[in-house]
């Protein structure tokens, strides 16, 4: 294992080298903050130096009033509307972000950073710790959603933007949106938290724990030090992804896609091979995920989500998080999302009403489960477009 990333590693060992290279020298834009500008984390440690990998789309206008920050979900990245250098797949929100799309890059300056703790170029457990010359691994400090947002604040400062026109994100991205709105409300003109919650539920913590235990039970995890042994806990991370992936779908979506259909065979084989299409699908999801994601990153980020509880940070009254806010909110949920059910979005709406905030709330009819926010959902797209264009008028942005 080379101590420093090197382009020559790319392609070797299921893209492990490429992944490692992207974690330390990303293809995207990169803000490197000096050692002298550490980030004080929620766990009270100082983290430095910090890198924030990010992509931008469109042009920042003269008075810097048209910037939209997109916060990504657990395993996504900064490549919201451009090709991912590891998977070579198109941007993960190409349905929503682009020229003429609801988040219109002809009108808005779109910024999407990789989160702190991620593995696509922002500082995380796969980054080289300058103190040791080796990846941080479990030496990386525990981080929170608030820490991720504080790192993004540095990026927005660096770009010279006082107030973001909008902060938009789904799932864990939605948690960051809420954190931005609660902790930096002056800097957020509008906020769109999608398919998310103000605290991580017990059930969601439980699913995350299953995933983490799967990773840590894999002997190739090597107590978190797999980089040093040239290994990857592939099986553990794949199982974690398989379990998580089920939670992103709905029973109806699974039934519609696969039913009890068999995989390239006419009858069951009386074995543990992937007889059913759904098994084959999940195995594929697991193995492709391992090719693009750092296992330790997965542990750290799921933990950050578990710790998220916006009410607890405000004397157990969620409304206190938003008191006095001038931000315009658009809360979105999906009918078949059982990971972040509408009930949890409604709690956010109740809290916002309690402080008479300007809030819109829509529940989109969809049978795609939690994943709906990443898929082509015309009513969802139209909602985002309508909300942003009305907010744009209020902000004085040209139509």
């Amino acid at each position, binding site marked *: 294992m080379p101590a420093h990333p090197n382009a020559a590693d790319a392609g070797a060992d299921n893209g492990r080298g490429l992944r490692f290279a992207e974690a330390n020298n990303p293809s995207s834009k990169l803000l490197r903050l000096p050692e002298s500008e550490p980030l004080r984390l929620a766990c009270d440690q100082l983290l430095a130096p910090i890198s924030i990998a990010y992509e931008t789309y469109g042009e920042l206008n003269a008075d810097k009033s048209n910037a939209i920050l997109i916060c990504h979900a657990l395993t996504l990245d900064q490549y919201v509307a451009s090709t991912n250098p590891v998977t070579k797949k198109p941007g993960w929100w190409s349905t929503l972000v682009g020229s003429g799309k609801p988040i219109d890059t002809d009108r808005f300056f779109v910024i999407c950073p990789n989160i702190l703790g991620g593995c696509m170029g922002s500082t995380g457990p796969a980054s080289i710790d300058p103190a040791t010359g080796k990846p941080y691994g479990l030496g990386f400090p525990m981080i929170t959603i608030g820490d991720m947002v504080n790192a993004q604040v540095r990026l927005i400062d660096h770009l010279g933007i006082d107030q973001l026109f909008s902060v938009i994100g789904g799932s864990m991205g939605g948690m960051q949106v809420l954190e931005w709105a609660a902790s930096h409300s002056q800097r957020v003109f509008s906020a769109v938290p999608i398919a998310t919650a103000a605290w991580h539920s017990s059930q969601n913590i439980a699913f995350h724990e299953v995933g983490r235990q799967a990773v840590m039970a894999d002997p190739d995890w090597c107590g978190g030090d797999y980089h040093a042994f040239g290994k990857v806990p592939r099986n553990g991370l794949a199982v974690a992804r398989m379990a998580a992936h089920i939670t992103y779908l709905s029973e109806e979506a699974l039934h519609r896609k696969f039913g009890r259909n068999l995989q390239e065979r006419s009858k069951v084989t009386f074995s543990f091979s992937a007889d059913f299409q759904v098994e084959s699908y999940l195995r594929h999801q697991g193995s492709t995920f391992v090719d693009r994601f750092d296992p330790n990153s997965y542990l750290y980020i799921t933990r950050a989500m578990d710790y998220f509880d916006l009410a607890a940070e405000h004397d157990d009254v969620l409304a206190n998080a938003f008191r006095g806010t001038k931000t315009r909110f658009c*809360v979105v949920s999906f009918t078949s999302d059982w990971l972040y059910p509408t009930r949890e979005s409604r709690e956010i709406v109740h809290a916002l009403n309690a402080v008479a905030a300007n809030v819109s*709330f*829509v529940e989109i009819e969809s049978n795609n489960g939690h994943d709906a926010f990443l898929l082509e959902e015309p009513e969802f797209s*139209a909602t985002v477009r309508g909300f942003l264009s009305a907010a744009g008028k209020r902000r004085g942005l040209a139509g």
Partner: protein
Amino acid sequence: MQKPLVPGEHRVDHLLIAELVEPGSRVLDVGCGDGALLQLLTETKSTDGRGMELSRERVNACVMRGLSVIQGDADRDLADYPDQAFDYAILSLTIQATRYPKTVLENLLRIGRRAIVSFPNFGHWRVRFDLLFNGRMPRTENLPETWYASPNAHLCTIKDFADLVAQMNAEVEEAVAFNTSGQRLPIRHSISLQNLFGEKAVFLLRGRRGQ
């Protein structure tokens, strides 16, 4: 920036409400439907408007139009709002469909410095005529559904509503009834005549605490 009020394009009760509302005020429209009133108020009075609507489809249509609307139930969700959060809390042709009209009205008077309530008048002569001579539940333009399909649970007359307002110790600042052609009934009409010829009514109310 502000558009003039144009009769004919809008519902008569909406036009009256738009006249009552002060420019630039904060407005909550409970049961905002497709958002027509909110849109009218935004365009003609530059209000800071919010809406609440029970039907998910209508809420989504409102948000797509750029209105700040949430899916919610007047019976359940008004309790969330703080006191005096709005200049006006409006309930337009909705109170008869609520489960607890008195509680809803109390909440409106609490949330808004003023409340504006419009409702179909069950004391209108056609309604009385239908019931008296046909012996059937009346069906009119304002009350088009059959008794079993109607969302209306608590129909009232202008007199009934005025009684409730008095009982709640709220002040009527303005009360206007419209006849079937949408004309305002002359102010000199007694409440009995308004109650007979008014097809719907609009009340502008102020809670005592708002003084």
